[in-house]
């Protein structure tokens, strides 16, 4: 039995030890979540910019989409216990495993992103060759194909976290996908403000604003709905990161709305704040999960409550 401070629900534990194993995923995985979301949002912005004739936004977003995808992939492989076996993910396609689904989503998503970015990065010498003309011709459909998959790339990661026994991640499965896609929108919008001049960056500013609003509402709902488990999101390192994320996102959004149209410098500063906010958001969500798996109260107390309410109202 553990000592309990007054006010906390009663629960027993085995010498206060955690019941669950802490997640093995460290900050690398938060970086991947951030970069994957950034890539997905940038792909959408790049495709939109291509359709609406905004060359700077198109170029910057397409290149960023590939760069962040590649860097994210690096973190993903680096975090494996046996990185040299990363391709074992391609042995199976398993609907019950969000990680398997994610592997195949990324496999479908990557080539389109690659072709769209290649058309921006090709040196003039190659652009004149047959291959170069082929890539240029394919850039628009490839970008659109990637854009069709991008929303799934940004949201599957929420299911990945939720399909665990980790209380904070599992219980938040209603809000997490919205937080993930909203955060992706904020990050990509922020990057768009950095790479494109203000007169081209209106869609980036709007995307970031939409994202910031949804992220704010989803985060509030999460913390109020979850009760005891919600504490994992508001306390400790996770709480600190998530508060930083909200502050940075709020500052960046206000900056872009008020000054982003007039001043390039203000737009860049706002974009940097939004990117940093997105990164802290993912770090905070990851750490909330680890905290909730490490303290047995998050495992025992809700399960105990569930059992007691079942005794009071037996199942039919």
């Amino acid at each position, binding site marked *: *039995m553990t000592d309990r401070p007054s006010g906390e629900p009663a629960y027993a*534990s*085995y*010498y206060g*030890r*955690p*019941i*669950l*194993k802490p*997640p*093995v*995923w460290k900050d690398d995985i938060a970086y991947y979540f951030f970069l994957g979301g950034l890539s*997905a*949002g940038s792909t*959408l912005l790049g495709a*939109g*910019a291509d359709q*609406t004739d905004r060359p700077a936004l198109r170029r910057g977003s397409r290149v960023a989409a590939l760069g962040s995808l590649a860097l994210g992939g690096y973190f993903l492989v680096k*975090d*494996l*216990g*046996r*990185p040299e*076996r990363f391709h*074992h*993910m391609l042995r*199976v396609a*398993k609907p*019950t*495993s969000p*990680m*398997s689904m994610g592997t195949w989503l990324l496999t479908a998503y990557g080539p389109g992103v690659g072709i769209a970015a290649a058309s921006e990065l090709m040196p003039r010498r190659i652009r004149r060759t047959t291959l170069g003309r082929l890539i240029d011709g394919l850039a628009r459909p490839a970008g659109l194909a990637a854009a069709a998959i991008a*929303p*799934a790339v940004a*949201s*599957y990661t*929420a*299911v*990945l976290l*939720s*399909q*665990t*026994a980790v209380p904070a991640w599992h219980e938040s*499965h209603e809000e*997490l*996908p*919205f937080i993930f*896609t*909203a955060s992706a*929108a904020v990050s990509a919008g922020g990057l768009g403000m950095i790479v494109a001049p203000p*007169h081209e960056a*209106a*869609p980036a500013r*709007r*995307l970031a604003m*939409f994202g910031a609003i949804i992220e704010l509402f989803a985060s509030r709902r999460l913390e109020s709905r979850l009760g005891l488990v919600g504490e994992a999101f508001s306390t400790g390192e996770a709480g600190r990161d998530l508060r930083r994320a909200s502050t940075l996102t709020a500052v960046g959004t206000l900056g872009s709305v008020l000054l982003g149209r007039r001043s390039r410098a203000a737009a860049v500063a706002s974009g940097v704040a939004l990117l940093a906010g997105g990164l802290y958001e993912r770090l905070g969500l990851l750490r909330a*999960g680890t905290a909730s798996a490490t303290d047995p109260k998050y495992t*025992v107390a809700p399960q*105990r409550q569930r*059992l007691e309410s079942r005794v009071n109202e037996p199942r039919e």
Partner: protein
Amino acid sequence: MIGKIGKQSLYGPLDDPARDAGHAEPPPRVGFFTDTSVCIGCKACEVACKEWNNVPDDGFDLLGMSYDNTGSLGANSWRHVAFVEQRSTSQTPAREPVDLGMPAFELPGARTGAESRQEFRWLMASDVCKHCTHAGCLDVCPTGALFRTEFGTVVVQQDICNGCGYCVSACPYGVIERREGDGRAQKCTLCYDRLKDGLEPACAKACPTDSIQFGVLDELRDRAHARVERLHADGRTEARLYGADPNDGVGGDGAFFLLLDEPEVYGLPPDPVVPTRDLPRMWRYAGAAALAFFGAAVSAFVEGRRR
């Protein structure tokens, strides 16, 4: 080989998980019944498991938790004997000491009189992987390294596992773990190699009191229910089964227990649920979020055309 996902494949009672996983004519499902009421805490199971399965040592740690210096199940501990010292409980009625006819050790308080005796009991329990009917670890494994054997057990193929760590977080019991320095997920195999040769697992073989019983799961469940009835008849009303109910959150455990207190006292979750239960629901929310994201991106451009 593509198995069909049946109505009860993700959650709920499931008669034969091996058949559900695609085995054509599987042998009967086997498992463990660990009757903690006769566990004497000798740790022979821990030792036998380590020896047979070549499980490396996990350091010489004195944890200050009664006689438990193993701590918990993990990559390097596939059996774990818990020791709980309870000074007094509402669960145990005060009983007169029974003369077991053992070589004389004086009973505490025998000389000083009954009034100075303390009600004390020692709970010992050998924990192990539950080999769930609906195994969270197995469901999330993205490489196919974790698989359902023909015996209905859950095993990691060490030549396939790439150490992604997903199973670690998906286990509602905190059993499976990535081994430091090795990088792969490790847990009890229910001695898959021994089962294939018709032998019982090493821990059950070594258990001197038959606290760990190995056998066909249906028979073990019958035996366990009979044992609980017997204990209740003897006045040990605190005896209860844990993991024996096919209607629980994991569809029943392949390795289940008879406990003498609440599960959390032994470090077990009181009401574990396989995370996969909520999978369809989680994807619906993710789908809605993805559509909202796409819609937000499109509307960001549609209105932006004139600027």
